[in-house]
């Protein structure tokens, strides 16, 4: 328990902030102290074998999962990794979330809870596998001690320890209590992935059944005794706040308990049901102090970014040779691209439930970062973190939005007005659209130089626009530079480096931060960087009169992994054979979140009507934990990426967003969904992410195919603003 006391709230908050949200660099958890040393487990009836594994007398194996399941399948994948090393019976596996407060109390035995940046598996595979392996050795040791035989003569398979020489067996359930008393081994050897029998297989998800009959509980579904419901409206003008509101006007409406101001920026109505709270909120007269940004529009933001395209001040992300000189000779091509604001629009709107007393604060929340939620709750409750608890609830989508904790802060602020009564805060869809943490806006000017043989001799990319880190994690800025703005474009990075060797290359960033709050949005900066790079590669190939695949391949000799996925999609789509009549193809490749990805699309455009017929995707994530889930993530990422490409755009007018619901923020639906084929090409030796990387290649592959079909270069998104006829 000393660990708790020695961690001041302030230090904890800083620690959490540094690991919250999208990409975390250099997170390094020393291998978990075996949990046993810290005393009995957390489930009182059944002692844990160690922090990761609880085995009940009926042989049920409960695997503890620190990361959040939001649809991406990490729960199943992480359980597979633990179960693999544990040598248990997969059909007996179930999972549970340890709580953020418990993690803190136990010296962060479960490591990082933050779930973003496609890091769930790739960043924790070693210590979760270790957890399974240590538990297995403790179970074997318990059997050996009981039988008084050397542990080395015992084997563990499918949840049973066997001593062949004496023909004795014991199930894990029978051994678990004794195993919990064993000293954890100092060293364990992890299996070679080629020997895996549970991990690496296309196993069904562990969390499907409850999602088919209404029994899966999401944050919005939570019921607590005496619970009240809150609806909220924050100032829609960015940078504005509440000036006044007339609570008396709605105080007598059915079900209304109270009307409260929430921080400086919002008002909430608390009622017996959410519908009544929302009805009263809609009737509540509120006057806003509209703040300093009423003149901000999409056009003014675009002008701000355009200025940055030619500005002198810029941070350099990748510099090879002398692009400036090289671009002053030869044939050059220049183009400017732009990517707009996007809303995450998770199907489940933001929500959190809080119960506050002067001594304690508890929050139930679908969160991508339980520890950040705990820190936000403690801060808003003004209580020591040790007196707070967060219960993680299944997420109805996250995509980066639920790494932010603004709704947790609000829920606690509201609950403080009603001590002892749990209050569930649910945002309306309109609130969700207006109070986003938007995919940042950027533009990019690209200039390339071609020699007489059509070889690319120089490339200059000037990115102008918004930094996520500057707004969200300033502590991760490097001397004023946002390193992740260059995702996929850097010279060398295990996270994602450019797949072309270009003798003279300059990629730089003029930071221009409009007053719109940005956030990590599935794919983050890889989304626009892949469009900029890969559509421009197509432009250059066209100018050079070279096939887009051949043009790229010439630059990729030093990048065999990038090349392998590109070749794979080209081959599968039949790049070198003619497409069906009226069907046209496009390609794209990039590296991000540690994985190499490529896509090839087939589209047709008839009377201006785009139809995406088919996309072939390839990914090399190094190791594959569950190929069936990878296929689902690839398909899903394409829906998300293509929704942005075709429809996604949040426009600013009068200092606020214009889109308020799915009727004006259109997204892709079934009818537009192409066939998707996924090629998984694990080359081993590294661990790449899965949930995000492929999102980035959908749009450029489609845009390049549209050019092939129509001769039109679409350089500003979304497509719905363009006439393809």
């Amino acid at each position, binding site marked *: 328990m000393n660990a708790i006391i020695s961690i001041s709230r302030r230090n904890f908050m800083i620690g959490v902030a540094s690991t919250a949200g999208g990409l975390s660099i250099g997170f390094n958890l020393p291998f978990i102290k075996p949990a046993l040393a810290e005393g009995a487990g957390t489930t009182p009836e059944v002692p844990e074998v160690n922090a990761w594994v609880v085995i009940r007398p009926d042989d049920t194996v409960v695997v503890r999962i620190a990361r959040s399941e939001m649809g991406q399948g990490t729960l199943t994948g992480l359980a597979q990794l633990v179960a693999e090393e544990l040598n248990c019976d997969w059909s007996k596996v179930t999972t549970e979330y340890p709580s953020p407060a418990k993690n803190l109390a136990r010296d962060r035995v479960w490591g990082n809870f933050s779930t973003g940046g496609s890091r769930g598996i790739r960043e924790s595979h070693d210590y979760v596998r270790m957890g399974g392996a240590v538990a297995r050795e403790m179970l074997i040791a318990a059997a050996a001690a009981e039988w008084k035989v050397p542990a080395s003569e015992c084997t563990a398979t499918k949840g049973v320890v066997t001593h062949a020489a004496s023909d004795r067996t014991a199930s894990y359930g029978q051994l678990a209590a004794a195993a919990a008393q064993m000293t954890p081994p100092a060293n364990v050897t992890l299996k070679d992935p080629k020997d895996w029998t549970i991990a690496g297989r296309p196993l069904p998800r562990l969390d499907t059944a409850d999602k*088919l*009959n*209404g029994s899966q509980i999401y944050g919005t579904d939570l019921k607590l005794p005496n619970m009240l419901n809150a609806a909220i409206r924050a100032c829609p003008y960015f940078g504005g706040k509440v000036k006044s509101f007339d609570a008396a006007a709605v105080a007598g409406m059915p079900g209304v308990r109270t009307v409260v101001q929430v921080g400086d920026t919002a008002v909430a109505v608390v009622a017996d049901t959410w519908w009544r709270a929302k009805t009263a909120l809609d009737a509540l007269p509120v006057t806003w102090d509209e703040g300093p940004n009423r003149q901000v529009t999409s056009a003014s933001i675009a002008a701000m970014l355009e200025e940055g395209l030619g500005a002198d001040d810029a941070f350099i992300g990748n510099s090879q040779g002398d692009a400036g000189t090289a671009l002053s000779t030869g044939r050059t091509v220049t183009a400017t691209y732009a990517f707009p604001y996007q809303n995450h629009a998770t199907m*489940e709107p933001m929500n959190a439930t809080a119960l506050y007393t002067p001594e304690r604060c508890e929050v139930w929340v679908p969160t991508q970062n339980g520890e950040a939620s705990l820190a936000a709750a403690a801060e808003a409750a003004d209580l020591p973190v040790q007196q707070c608890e967060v219960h993680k609830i299944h997420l109805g989508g996250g995509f980066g939005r639920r790494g932010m904790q603004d709704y947790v802060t609000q829920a606690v602020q509201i609950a403080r007005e009603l001590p002892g009564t749990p209050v569930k805060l649910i945002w309306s869809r309109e609130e969700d659209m207006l109070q986003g943490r938007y995919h940042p806006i950027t533009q990019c000017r690209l200039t390339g130089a071609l020699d007489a043989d059509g070889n690319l001799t120089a490339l200059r990319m000037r990115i102008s626009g918004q930094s996520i880190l500057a707004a969200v994690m300033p502590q991760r800025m490097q001397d004023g530079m946002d390193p992740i703005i260059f995702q996929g474009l850097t010279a060398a990075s295990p996270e994602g480096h450019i797949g072309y060797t270009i003798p003279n290359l300059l990629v730089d960033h003029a930071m221009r931060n409009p007053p719109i709050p940005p956030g990590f949005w599935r794919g983050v900066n890889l989304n626009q960087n892949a469009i900029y790079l890969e559509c421009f590669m197509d432009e250059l190939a066209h100018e050079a009169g070279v096939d887009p695949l051949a043009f790229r391949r010439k630059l990729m000799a030093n990048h065999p992994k990038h090349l392998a996925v590109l070749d794979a999609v080209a081959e599968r789509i039949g790049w070198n054979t003619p497409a069906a009549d009226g069907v046209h193809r496009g390609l794209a490749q990039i590296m991000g979140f540690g994985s190499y990805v490529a896509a090839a699309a087939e589209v047709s455009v008839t009377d201006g009507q785009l139809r995406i017929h088919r996309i072939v995707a390839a990914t090399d994530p190094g190791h594959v934990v569950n190929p069936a889930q990878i296929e689902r993530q690839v398909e899903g990422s394409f829906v998300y990426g293509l929704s942005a490409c075709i429809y996604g755009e949040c426009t600013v007018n009068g200092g606020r967003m214009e889109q308020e619901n799915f009727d004006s923020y259109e997204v892709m639906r*079934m009818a537009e969904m192409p066939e998707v084929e996924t090629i998984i090409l694990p080359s081993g030796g590294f661990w790449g992410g899965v949930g995000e990387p492929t999102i980035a290649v959908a749009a450029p592959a489609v845009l390049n195919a549209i050019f092939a079909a129509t001769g039109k270069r679409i350089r500003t998104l979304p497509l719905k603003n363009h006439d393809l006829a």
Partner: protein
Amino acid sequence: MARLIINSTPHEIEVDPDTPLLWVIREQIGLTGTKYGCGVAACGACTVHIDGAATRSCVLPVSAVGPDQQITTIEGLSPDSSHPLQQAWLQLDVPQCGYCQAGMIMAAAGLLTQNPNPSDEDINNEITNICRCGTYNRVRAAIKLAANGGEATQRG
């Protein structure tokens, strides 16, 4: 006082007549499988059946539902997840986050009632629900699987 028959059980409830059926089901009856996604009939997360027809309950005032009409929610589609669509969904492991899936299944069940063997075109026209996780291809495949009595066809 309103009388509603939900999943074959009659309920007498005190309710503001303008309240959308969705919120009556979720907050007063306490069946939370039916979801709120938009409140403007744009996403389908709130789909239930009224006399067998798929209906977006977020824009339907409870007063518009008659006392003898049969309302079915995801919880009442089958007693034990045995509806052919639920079985197909399980077999193809369709859901990701799952939040849209009750609405998807209810919309699909409404479609199959009217059209037991829908073409791709029929599915495109009828299943306009939003899934932000991107399960569309598997939703389509599961509808076809259920329509074919559990015999897998090629995945769409």
